[in-house]
């Protein structure tokens, strides 16, 4: 619950930084804060009270059922949000690198990183 609220506040701070800043690098830092907040929210949704990590070893209670299979009795955390966040973090790094290379290219062309100096898309 606390982690969920923390993630939502980080998302709001990230959106605020993206809207209020003029420097392109600072906008990308705001994007990275927004990314971290989203991952915290997704992990907080999958948490189960007093549960262990989703790795079945000696710490988790197991028993044999009638057909000879293994029945997991101990409480584990929901593994689906963990898997989603795992891939989302890696994609986040790649997208951040792409954004930064656009910023570097823009600086080579226009010699400024202030977003008010680029007026081609204003009307």
């Amino acid at each position, binding site marked *: 619950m606390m982690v969920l609220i923390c993630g939502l506040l980080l998302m709001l701070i990230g959106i605020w930084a993206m809207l209020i800043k003029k420097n392109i690098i600072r906008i990308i830092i705001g994007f990275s804060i927004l990314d971290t907040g989203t991952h*915290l929210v997704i992990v907080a949704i999958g948490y189960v009270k007093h*549960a262990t990590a989703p790795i079945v070893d000696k710490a988790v209670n197991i028993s044999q059922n009638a057909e000879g299979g293994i029945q997991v009795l101990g409480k584990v955390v929901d593994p689906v949000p963990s898997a989603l*966040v795992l891939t989302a973090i890696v994609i986040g790094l790649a997208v951040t690198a792409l954004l930064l290379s656009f910023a*570097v290219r823009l600086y080579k062309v226009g010699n400024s990183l202030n977003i008010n100096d680029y007026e081609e898309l204003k009307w």
Partner: protein
Amino acid sequence: MPEIFALILLIVISLGAAVYAVFTKKTITALIASGIISLSASIIYLLMAAPDVAMTEATIGAGLTTVVFLYAMKHVKGGEDD
């Protein structure tokens, strides 16, 4: 009970670092603050029983993202603080 205190401490640190990253004047301090957010988020993942995610966040979020930002700031020298 100690886990709750650690969680509250980490949440306060990450929120404070986020607000500092928005308000500070120099870009490089904002970058270090965003690295602190990622590092405390990775310990939060460990307390939330997701060790795979904690590993990924600690290596990518706090390690490689900061270095990628630093390399990009090397190429835009002179324009990063306006």
